[in-house]
């Protein structure tokens, strides 16, 4: 009984201490006074995770507090985003969202538990990952023009692989299909690894995918790339033309990654976080590592919270007509 009473007393003391820490008004000028949690809505080691880790590693130095990455996977990143949307808006819980979680999710998931614009404050854009049009190495068309003619003529026969409903490869291929006006059979895989395996093995004809894991395969000649869907060529694939150069300017797609805070996070805190992110993007080491991944680092004008807000708004408008609701 004695033991029980004492432990109860100490527990309530601990609880009181905890409460005062939580309830104490967050003074923006002191921010941050403790470590920050960065939710990454995908598995550790994935493209979004790697970008988040590279940038937040530098941001932590600027802010003088550690940033703990928490990988919460599931439902195309929407589980994590819903959790971040519900978190306290004190600047200590952030999320690295991407094109899927903070734009394409709106048309894809009609029962989405959050809204990219209404539930979040934009903090800053981190990096864009270009999308490539890839095909098995013995797929007949030689360039993008032939590819367009071929898939239009054989729309009944061609198979397009993607990494699962809601994934970047799925969403961007849907855009390509709507630009071409075709509806090929989409073969779903569990992630980009198995999808790439099927493409290398020649079991499927083509897919749209992020640049990161495709570069070594293209260089080794196990698959081929028709075009890169960005305005400029990428330094890691100098011989791959842009979609505009190759004759399909309407297909523009980039998987972007950006930091968001829960709605209502004080503006001074957003400004501090944005400044830290911008500083990270100007750091030589950070830039070098992002470029090695084939990422595109945003121009200074595109790094403000306002610019990110506009981007999200435009992206939702862009993807909504392309993606039919999934379920």
């Amino acid at each position, binding site marked *: 009984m004695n033991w029980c009473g004492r432990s109860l007393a100490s527990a309530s003391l601990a609880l009181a201490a905890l409460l005062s820490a939580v309830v104490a008004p967050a003074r923006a000028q002191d921010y941050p006074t403790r470590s920050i949690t960065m939710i990454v809505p995908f598995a*550790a080691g994935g493209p979004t995770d790697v970008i988040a*880790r590279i940038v937040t590693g530098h941001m932590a130095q600027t802010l003088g507090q550690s940033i703990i990455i*928490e990988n919460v996977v599931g439902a195309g990143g929407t589980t994590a985003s819903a959790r971040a949307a519900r978190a306290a808006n004190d600047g200590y819980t952030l999320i690295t969202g991407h094109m899927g979680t903070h734009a394409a999710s709106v048309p894809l998931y009609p*029962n989405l538990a959050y809204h990219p614009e209404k539930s979040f404050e934009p903090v800053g854009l981190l990096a864009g990952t270009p999308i490539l049009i890839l095909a098995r190495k013995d797929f007949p068309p030689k360039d993008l023009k032939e590819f367009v003619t071929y898939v239009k003529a054989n729309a009944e026969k061609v198979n397009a692989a993607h990494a699962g*409903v809601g994934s970047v490869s799925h969403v961007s291929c849907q855009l390509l299909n709507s630009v071409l006006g075709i509806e090929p059979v989409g073969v779903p895989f569990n992630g980009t690894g198995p999808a790439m395996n099927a493409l290398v093995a020649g*079991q499927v004809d083509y897919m749209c995918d992020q640049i990161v894991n495709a570069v070594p395969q293209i260089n080794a000649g196990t698959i081929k790339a028709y075009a890169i869907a960005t305005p400029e060529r990428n330094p890691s694939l100098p011989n791959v033309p842009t979609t505009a150069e190759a004759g399909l300017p309407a297909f523009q797609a980039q998987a972007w990654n950006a930091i968001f805070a829960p709605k209502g996070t004080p503006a001074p805190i957003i400004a501090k976080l944005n400044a830290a992110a911008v500083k990270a993007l100007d750091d030589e080491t950070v830039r070098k590592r992002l470029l090695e991944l084939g990422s595109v680092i945003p121009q200074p004008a595109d790094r403000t919270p306002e610019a990110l807000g506009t981007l999200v708004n435009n992206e939702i408008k862009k993807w909504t007509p392309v993606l039919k609701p999934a379920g």
Partner: protein
Amino acid sequence: MVDLFANLAHGFAVAFSPINLLMCLIGALVGTLVGVLPGIGTIATVAMLLPITFGLPPVGALIMLAGIYYGAQYGGSTTSILVNIPGEATSVVTALDGHQMAKQGRAGPALAIAAIGSFFAGCVATVLIAILGAPLTKLALAFGPAEYFSLMVLGLIFAVVLAKGSVLKAIAMIVFGLLLSMVGSDIETGASRMAFNIPELADGLGFATVAMGVFGFAEIIRNLDHGAEMSRDLVQQKITGLMPTRKDLIDSAPAIGRGTVLGSILGILPGGGAVIASFAAYTLEKKLAKNPSRFGRGAIEGVAAPESANNAAAQTSFIPLLTLGIPPNAVMALMVGAMTIHGIVPGPQVMQKQPDLVWGMIASMWIGNLMLVIINLPLVGIWVRLLRVPYRLMFPSIVIFCAIGIYSVNNAPVDVILAGVFGLVGYWLIKHDFEPAPLLLGMVLGPLMEENLRRALLISRGDWSVFVSRPLSAVLLAIAAGLLVLAVLPTLRAKRDEVFVESEG
């Protein structure tokens, strides 16, 4: 061949540097720990440790992560044998005979043979990676959706053979497992199935959640059950020798060899290779045994074969990563992430471009296996002594470790509650003589089977003949059909035994 020795020498030079030896040891130790602690899986651990590898040199980091992966295969058998809780999907079958051996006071030999089998398999598979890695890659590419589907059908037939009791009940459990595996998102449309609008169910039920429930929690409830008092005391009192006897070694040797071969081949296949390997090895032993009824009642081959198979598979599953640059499973995908963080994006040329990394890792696997067997054999004594801990202290610790493990997979409290629910379900099943192993196999194979069936039919535009017109797939289906006939028709089985007797004479 000269190249091979030069490469291996180079690899050993890399792996024997003090820092890499230390990394290998840390990996082996963490792996053993992860394997031993129920519920804490390799995926969660590698994901948690990934950030630490930031500051390490890339080769050392990958040697450590690889060590965790195959180290967990050593440790995974420990809880299977001691307390009937498989820590990993690959050690589910080990629990069948391993725990029976423990109940007969032979936990020591069971643990020791698991470590010895794993060591042998690890050594052979490492040599295989070094010599045949590149040509074996073709196997990974030859397996398309149709072949996978047929392999999964074969895997389900294995599950029927697993059962020691009623075949009908085993089939019921497999079907129940398949049904459970369908909870979650539809792969083609993304639509939610049987998730009842619970967001945590949107990605389906986790293996750890169900396994901890139907094996771990159900076993605890059963042990606390009044009638089970006696058998528990038996486990504690009857402990005989710690090390396997000569007879044990002679009985296990062929099983270890066959398990290693099966595991090495199936491990190369992306996806559920290691899981199927352990089930297939067990099935093969049971089918080859002169007296199959010993299985499920403490046959040492039933521990030796699957443990060798899963360790061999864990090693050969590195082949697609090292030769194609494509990760064959979730742990490998994390290793690719680790490489990416270090600025190495693996691809088909990774062997030429990163010889330090590839050969250093291959050499480290052999060193790691040696370390693991040295770590694990003396541990046998300690584990066996753990059985003497009074149950009133042991069961709360098991429950806590399981709960932490389940929570750590997705950081989701719902998973812990679900495991509790499955504990009750599992208790009901045990009480009615339904075995949980076929259920788990159905659950693991279900998604692979469904996804590949749909992929194959999407590619063939709904033409079912792909499963028989592709030679590999047809062969697998034929083996499956053969096994099913042998398992289901007891009269035919009797005739088969006669045939064997005749041909032997």
